[in-house]
């Protein structure tokens, strides 16, 4: 059985149709990337998947008892709110010490347990958010433009971490990204979204689809090839 199944999803906000007739199915262990221009409804789709947005039509079905790890696009961290990383991981419910500590170690952030959230760098915040998502051993990890605001080495390191976590934990990964060249090559399936699903398939199929080229131009195909090239060599020089 699939983890999440979406059928005929339609979301209207403020009189504007944001998503229409979206079908989506995610199987256990698969890496799916959603690409699309700004305002194409990528974040709204993820919010509908976690139940933060109610569909106006259609259905979002989760496997009963599905454990989701969700990493939001960004955190509205106000400097007036004093909170350390440990407290953040224990919200809204306390979790066993071994669990939050283990999650921090998994993302290489075990030194940050006592650091104040407001003092973290962008990359550190992403790692802490990822640790939070990993705490209840998710069957699927949902990442919304997780590398926004990171520099290139930072986001490359972040994606390496994701890939490694996938092979360690075997969870499915659904992510939204605008960094096509970095993400697509690592994906089993790419979905090109622009209010509706324009096209989907393996990275190669999508990159050469006319609908995709109409949205992103042809330049990205070269970038994809470039990434494949780098990928076959050394990860650590990314």
């Amino acid at each position, binding site marked *: 059985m699939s983890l999440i199944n979406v059928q005929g999803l339609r979301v209207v906000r*403020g009189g504007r149709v944001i998503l229409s007739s979206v079908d989506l199915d995610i199987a256990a262990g698969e890496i799916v990337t959603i690409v699309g221009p700004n305002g194409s409804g990528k974040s709204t789709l993820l*919010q509908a998947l*976690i*139940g*933060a947005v109610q569909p106006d039509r259609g259905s979002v079905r989760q496997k009963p008892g599905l454990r*989701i790890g*969700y990493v*939001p696009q960004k*955190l*509205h*961290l*106000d400097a*007036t*709110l*004093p*909170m*350390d990383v440990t*407290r*953040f991981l224990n*919200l*809204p*419910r306390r979790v066993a010490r071994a669990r939050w500590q283990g999650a921090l170690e998994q993302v290489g952030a075990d030194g940050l347990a006592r650091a*104040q959230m407001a003092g973290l760098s962008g990359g550190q915040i992403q790692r802490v958010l990822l640790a*939070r998502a990993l705490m209840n051993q998710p069957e699927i990890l949902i990442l*919304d433009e997780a590398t926004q605001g990171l520099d290139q080495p930072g986001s490359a390191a972040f994606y390496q971490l994701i890939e490694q976590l996938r092979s360690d934990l075997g969870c499915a990964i659904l992510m939204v990204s605008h960094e096509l060249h970095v993400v697509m090559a690592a994906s089993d399936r790419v979905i090109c979204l622009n209010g509706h699903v324009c096209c989907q398939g393996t990275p190669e199929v999508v990159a050469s689809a006319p609908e995709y080229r109409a949205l992103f131009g042809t330049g990205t195909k070269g970038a994809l090839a470039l990434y494949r090239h780098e990928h076959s060599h050394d990860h650590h020089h990314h």
Partner: protein
Amino acid sequence: MTLLDNFILRALLAGLGAVLAAAPLGCFVIWRRMAYFGDATAHAAILGVALAFALQAPVFLSVLGVALAMALTVAFLSGRGYAADALLGVMAHSALAFGLVAVSLIPNARIDLNAFLFGDILAVSRFDVLVIWGGAALILLMLWWRWSSLLIATLSPDLAHAAGVAPRREQMVLTLAMALVVAVAIKVIGVLLIGAMLITPAAAARPLAASPERMAVLATLIGALSVVAGLWLAFLIDTPAAPTIVAVAAMCFLASNLWSGVRRRARRA
């Protein structure tokens, strides 16, 4: 002498009760950047006063009703994404203007407007003190009950959803608490300075606190100190009580920020 003791004691108790209600909620007001939300709710209370006199209804209930209506409107608009800073500002100040106009239109009513604008802490009755402490207890219970959910909803509505917490419901809790604070504090602080009593102790506590809980407790202590010192000063130099209390709180804000600045510089050196 006993009479004097009594009204000072009542003033003290009323002030402490109001601070107990306002200071922890004030933390959420600054964490969520909703200072205008507090102002709009508080200013609308004058309309509630006018209504109470027109309908000869109890002031507390009337103020609570109007403040709640205003708070719900603002919460609804901000939930829809309409509540730009400008709109909230317009609502906060026009609520005050309409309230003042409404008060002046009530025939034969001799309302001591100053008492509602700036509070009249020395005139609170035994019953008022009871109502204030009852309201404060209710607000504290609500915050205590929802504390962790409120925090995660403040950090990120999406993370709250993912953790099974509905951010709209938490917003509702704060909206209710806000209306209650206004109804409780109007006799003590007055509508013009309720906003100040919400955010000043919390802002003063911020540099001294490393966790949200400690910030709420410190804000309450700083608020209590402001009430005691402010009342004493008001007697000593014969100034109006509520503004003196707020002025003391503002001095606490200045002192705590200066102190943390000095400490930071000392650590760097």
